Structure formats: C-alpha cells, structure tokens
C-alpha cells in the first residue's frame, strides 16, 4: 500500500547507492522530467556550467520564461532598469546557447513560470518537476512531485537532469465537507497554515484529500498546492482525476490521440492506495470556514475576516508573543481592532497563487458594475499572456477598467516587487499573493493576504471587508 507520493518518488529513483553514502536514510538521485527556468535564479547556474566546461544534458526537458523581473506596463518601451535588462538578456543568451525553449517578453506564451507550465500542458501527472523558485509546489495540483530548488541545484539539474533529495515524510491534509459561498481555495490553504504553522510541513510532502479538494477546479487546486511552501512543506500533491484530465486534454503540449489514452490510463493509477499510511494526518472542516485574511507578517498569522487583531499576550509561547508584537508594530495594528474595516491604499490581483482566469473571473464577479473606492490604487496583473488574452475575450478587462482597476501585462509584479510595482512605506495592501513578509511588497509596505473575491471586495469598499456582505448587496 503506497501513497501517491511514494508512487511518483519510486518511479524516479535513478539510484540510492552513490556519493559514498551507504546509510539507509541517505539521499536518492531522482530523475527530473521537467525543469522550469526563469531569469532571477539561473544566470549563476549557466555561468557555473560554462566555467566547468559542462553542457545542458536535456535542453528539450527544460523550459524558460521571464517573469520575476519584467515590467508590467507598456511592453513597447525599453526596460528602464539597466540591471534588470541585463538579467533578462542574459537568460535570452543562455537559453539560445543551450538550445532551451524560451518564452521571452514578446512571446504569446510569456507568463509566470507556474502559470505557463500547466496552461501549455507541460505539467503532467506523475512527473517530477523542479524550478529555482519556491512556488514550484504549484504543479503538485496535477499529481506531480514538484518542488523549488536553489541556483546550485539548478546548475546540477541542467548538467545531470537529476536532483539529489532525501526522502521526505508524508502528511495527509484532509478537507471535509464543501466550503460555504464566498469561501474558496485560498481560504482553505490559509486556514491550514494558521493551523499547522509556517514550519508545520517542514521535511514533508503534503497530500490534499477530501470532498472539498475533489470539488475544486484545477486553478483552485493550484492555489492550494502553491502555498504548501508557506507551511514549510517540500511539496504539495493532489491525486489526478477527471477534473485534471479535462483540464489537460487538448492543451498544446499534452499527449495526443493514442498517447493521450495511454497517458490517462497510467495517470488513473496515481492515487494513494486505500489504507496507505501517512506519517501524519491533519483534518480540517472546510464547511466551517469563513473568508480568511492575514493580519501579520507571516502567512500563519491568519484570521477569519469576522475576527479581531489578536493580543500578543494570548500567544501560546514567548517566541510567538515576541513575533506577534513585532508583527503588530510593523503592521501598525492594535490588539482587538476588528479586521473588517481596516482601510487599504492598494489592491493587487495576480501572482502564481491567484493570477489565473478563474481567479480573475471570481474577482470580476464582485467588481462588476461597481467602482474602486476613492483613494485606492488597484491593479490586475494576469498570470500569463494566455490568461490575459482569455480574460480579454470574456470582457473581464472592461469590467476591471470600468471600475478603475489598472489592467497590466503578465509577470510576478507586486507579489515580490522586483520591478517598479511596489508599495510605498506605510501603504496597506489587500493582496492575492502568497507572502506577507516585512518589506516583501516594498520596504515598509503592509500586506494582507486574501482570496481574489476578498481583494476585489476590499478595492470596492476601500477597506478589508467580508466579501459575503458585498455579494449579498447585489
């Protein structure tokens, strides 16, 4: 009896007898099916290869795009930041020299690396996928084993198509019941991180199961797996099913015809056997959750929108009391303040967590026919050119523009603020991204993480608000 993780892991072990290690707990050499590359964590890896006289072993299993450091404004203008421009042109040169497919700024397939892999059909069940980015866990939504790596490991994968990994533990996260209206994937994952903490998944691969997960779209499943890393997990996984196959069928790089039938047949066995053992199981009642919002500077500092800012004195340990105090000072919040009603200056809709068409639809359904509150700057940054084109074909761009949102070009943008999309010191932001760390969206900026519907509602209300109240006013 094996878990989904066991099956994918064991199918990719090249050897466990290498590098002089003989102990049973030693690492394995795992084969990598898909290596995703972007501009920020790859330049030093390619340089390392050059210095050592090594070549890229399987360029055809490698895909590159530009996302972290790209401007999201007018793409016809030259890039003003010279250092950023050099980093982008370095990837162009490295990809060309190595024969790696690259979706550059002018490509109709450019976008956030974790958005384009799935939409092209390259992210497939049962594969091992790595990328020099912690949110690689996103791809686990398809039943892949996908995890982020550092630049030295990027170089290792380029040179060997393998990665050295110690075998992680497994944790089942079971979401019971169906979430209520106004509660979605983002709320489920924030509630989990609140429960187990930002180190709760350290050393583990999470497998998400239960009725609430089965009922989710692929986009929702990606949102959940994406933030596995915020719980400290190595990866998150969801067993593929009809929803997965329907998403992948007819994608440009998915198998076709006979190969498709064979693939679905093989993928159908990718689920944990009945009675398979996990090292730990966490159960969450999805039906009991309300919309979630973070109040602090760590994704675990989460509460329901109906709650108040907690009092550090109530934190369970001295370490947490100190963390809470520091977070409240940075966020300029006082214990006992209701979260609903906190005024926001900025709203960001986008990122690899929530930058897909269904996320934009969810937000647009709240925005339609309304106006962004006076004094609030709100922006939509689609996850990819394909997302942008699909949203425009549905008229979502008009809904956002008419309401006063900026409709921008794809990239990571204000999720990490490497480009010019950043908060000013002291600005408070309702954000659909994944990290509320100090300074993440700009030095001194204050981030509240939430779902696309909640962020859209905050833009309209000008403050944090329970999206269920906004919907009910329709």
């Amino acid at each position, binding site marked *: 009896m094996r878990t989904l993780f066991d099956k994918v892991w064991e199918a990719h072990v090249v050897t466990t007898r290498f*590098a002089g290690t003989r102990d049973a707990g030693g690492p394995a050499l795992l084969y990598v099916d898909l290596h995703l590359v972007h501009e920020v964590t790859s330049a030093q890896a390619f340089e390392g290869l050059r210095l050592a006289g090594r070549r890229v072993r399987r360029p055809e299993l490698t895909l590159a795009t530009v996302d972290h450091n790209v401007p999201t404004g007018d793409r016809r203008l030259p890039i003003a930041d010279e250092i950023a421009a050099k980093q982008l042109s370095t990837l162009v040169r490295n990809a060309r020299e190595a024969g790696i497919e690259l979706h550059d700024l002018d490509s109709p397939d450019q976008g956030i690396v974790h958005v384009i892999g799935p939409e092209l059909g390259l992210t497939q069940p049962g594969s091992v996928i790595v990328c020099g980015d912690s949110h690689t866990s996103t791809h686990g939504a398809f039943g892949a084993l996908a995890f982020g790596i550092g630049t030295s490991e990027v170089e290792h994968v380029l040179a060997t198509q393998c990665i050295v990994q110690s075998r992680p533990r497994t944790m089942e996260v079971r979401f019971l019941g169906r979430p209520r209206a106004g509660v979605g994937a983002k709320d489920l994952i924030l509630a989990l991180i609140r429960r187990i903490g930002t*180190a709760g998944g350290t050393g583990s691969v999470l497998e998400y199961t239960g009725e609430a997960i089965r009922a989710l779209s692929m986009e929702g499943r990606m949102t959940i797996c994406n933030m596995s890393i915020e719980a*400290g997990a190595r990866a998150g996984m969801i067993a593929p099913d009809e929803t997965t196959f329907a998403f992948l069928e007819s994608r440009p790089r998915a198998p076709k015809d006979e190969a498709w039938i064979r693939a679905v047949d093989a993928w159908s066995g990718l689920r944990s056997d009945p009675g398979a053992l996990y090292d730990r199981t966490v159960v969450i009642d999805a039906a009991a959750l309300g919309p979630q919002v973070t109040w602090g500077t760590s994704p675990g500092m989460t509460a329901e929108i109906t709650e108040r800012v907690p009092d550090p004195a109530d934190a369970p340990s001295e370490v947490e009391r100190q963390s809470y105090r520091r977070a409240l000072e940075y966020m300029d919040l006082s214990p006992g303040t209701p979260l609903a009603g906190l005024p926001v200056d900025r709203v960001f809709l986008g990122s690899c967590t929530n930058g897909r068409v269904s996320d934009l639809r969810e937000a647009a359904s709240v925005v339609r026919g309304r106006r962004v509150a006076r004094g609030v700057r709100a922006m939509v940054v689609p996850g990819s050119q394909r997302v942008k084109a699909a949203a425009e074909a549905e008229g979502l761009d008009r809904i956002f523009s008419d309401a006063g949102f900026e409709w921008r070009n794809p990239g990571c943008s204000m999720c990490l603020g490497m480009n010019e999309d950043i908060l000013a010191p002291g600005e408070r932001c309702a954000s659909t991204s994944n990290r509320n760390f100090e300074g993440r969206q700009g030095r001194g900026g204050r981030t509240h993480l939430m779902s696309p519907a909640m962020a859209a509602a905050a833009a309209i209300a000008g403050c944090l608000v329970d999206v269920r109240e906004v919907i009910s006013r329709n």
Partner: protein
Amino acid sequence: MEPFIVHTGRVAALPRANVDTDQIIPKQFLKRIERTGFGPALFFDWRYLPDGAPDPAFELNAPKAAGATFLLAGENFGCGSSREHAPWALGQYGFRAVLAPSFADIFHGNCCQNGLLPVTLPAKAVQELFARYDAAPDGYELTVDLLTTTVRDPRGFESAFDISAYRREMLLHGLDEIGRTLQQEDAIAAFERAHR
C-alpha cells in the same frame, strides 16, 4: 566549495523566529547575475536606516557582534523564497555557520551547497547560547566541530548537532556535487533508456 571542518569564532545573535529569505536579502539585490557582491546587502532593511546609516538597534550592528563568523537565530530560519542569494549574502558577510533550532528545507540545502554550515541544535541548547551571549558584554566565542558534530564554548557548554551523513561528508571535503553525480552516468543513462 570551501570545506568546513572545525571553526572557532565570534557570535552574532538574532533572537527572532521565522527569519525569511526576503529579510536576509531583499529582492532589489536579486538582479545581479554574479554570485558575489551580496555581503553589504545582507539584512538590508533591518541593518540600515532609510537614510543609509547603520541602524544601531539592529542586533548585528551591536559592537559585540562585530567580526562574527557564527549567526545564532530562532526557529524556522530561512523560510520563504528559494533564493540562494541568501546563503551567498550570509557567507560573503563573513558567516561560516548558522546555528538555530530548525531551518527551512530549501535554505538548508542551499547553505550546504555553499559551505555555510547549518547547525541544527536542540531548542534548549539555543536558549542557553542566547543566554551566554547576553551575559558576555564584550562578545561571545564558540567552536563548531563538524568532525565530531558538536558545538562548544570555553566555559563548559557542549551540545551535539544533527546533520545527515551525506551533507556532512560533502561539507567536510568541500565536494562538487555535480561532479559526483556525473560519475553516475551509467545509472542515469540506463534510467533514460528504460523510461523514454
């Protein structure tokens, strides 16, 4: 990679939990295409005031932390982004090891790739080290020994630490992981034949 065998040096203490890699090296410094030049940017937002002067309230700017080669920190150190710029910045600042009750997985791996030793100690041992640091007005010195996997000070503190046999060997000898994996060419090629 520079090997780590045994090192004695001064300690800088950062008694905070969940220090993330965005703090260790903020994003505006990730545009460089070199592996070097990150030391001055370490903990940038905490280390400098908005006018660029060192913030005297930040722990690493304390006189007793000057010249430190060990960083002592709280649990879940290095969480968040996979940016290897974080261990590059710590190493280029002068740190040879980070001592904490726990580390985030990707950061832990990145440290080992760069000869920056992640020393995972029992929480009680870390508390004791913080106390000894606080009680030493002119600075506090430690020895970290990877051969015996122990941490000790001249006044009787000693604690064993955990590290996998594989990581320990790589660090002790400063080995090139890619070179070792390439020695598995036969196994890799056999896997490719069987699976493609």
